[in-house]
């Protein structure tokens, strides 16, 4: 069975500090991987996607970056957090760009 694990579960960070969020998918070879951001009670905004190791496509510019160092790992990061980065970050995988399977998310609070 496929599993998707996101870490950390929650983070409280200061404005201007760096951030690294991670996501690991087990049980699937070469999945498409995605990062989404959700403001509290808000819609889901796609940030990045990756269809292969080492290649990441940006969908929106939010002063964030993403990398896929391994087939089963997707990393979201920034060197300087903004207040507007607060929210819920969701990693997801799919095989055919149809059904997305989401992780349990990371809740980020920037103070």
């Amino acid at each position, binding site marked *: 069975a496929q599993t998707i694990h996101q870490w950390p579960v929650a983070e409280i960070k200061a404005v201007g500090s760096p951030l690294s969020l991670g996501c690991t998918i087990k049980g699937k070879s070469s999945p*498409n991987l995605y990062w989404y951001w959700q403001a509290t009670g*808000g819609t*889901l905004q*796609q940030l990045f996607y990756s*269809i292969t190791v080492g290649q990441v496509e940006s969908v929106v510019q939010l002063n964030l970056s993403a990398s896929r160092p391994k087939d089963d790992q997707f990393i979201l990061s920034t060197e300087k957090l903004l207040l507007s980065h607060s929210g819920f970050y969701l990693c997801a995988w799919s095989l055919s*760009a149809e059904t*997305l399977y989401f992780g349990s998310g990371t809740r980020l609070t920037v103070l």
Partner: protein
Amino acid sequence: GDSVTQTEGLVTLTKGLPVMLNCTYQTTYSPFLFWYVQHLNEAPKLLLKSSTDNKRTEHQGFYATLHKSSSSFHLQKSSVQLSDSALYFCALRSNYNVLYFGSGTKLTVEP
């Protein structure tokens, strides 16, 4: 550009009544529509999907029909239950690997 519109932000109903959540979309590509459901403090999960014009798709008592002539994919259920209380998102995949979500409809079912 591509977009999804959900007109109801909040819907409150009594258990046993029917519900319809509206979803319309705009795209110049061939559309693939989805409904995702997100229960409180959980990740979104796929409820329904369709790319076939005028064909009803059903799952867990919910159903929707993609109508390309009116660019719509409304979600319906004939009798809502307390457990249906959740956030419902309509989403559009037009360009491969990019999914656009609507603003979401919060459904609250009361006893």
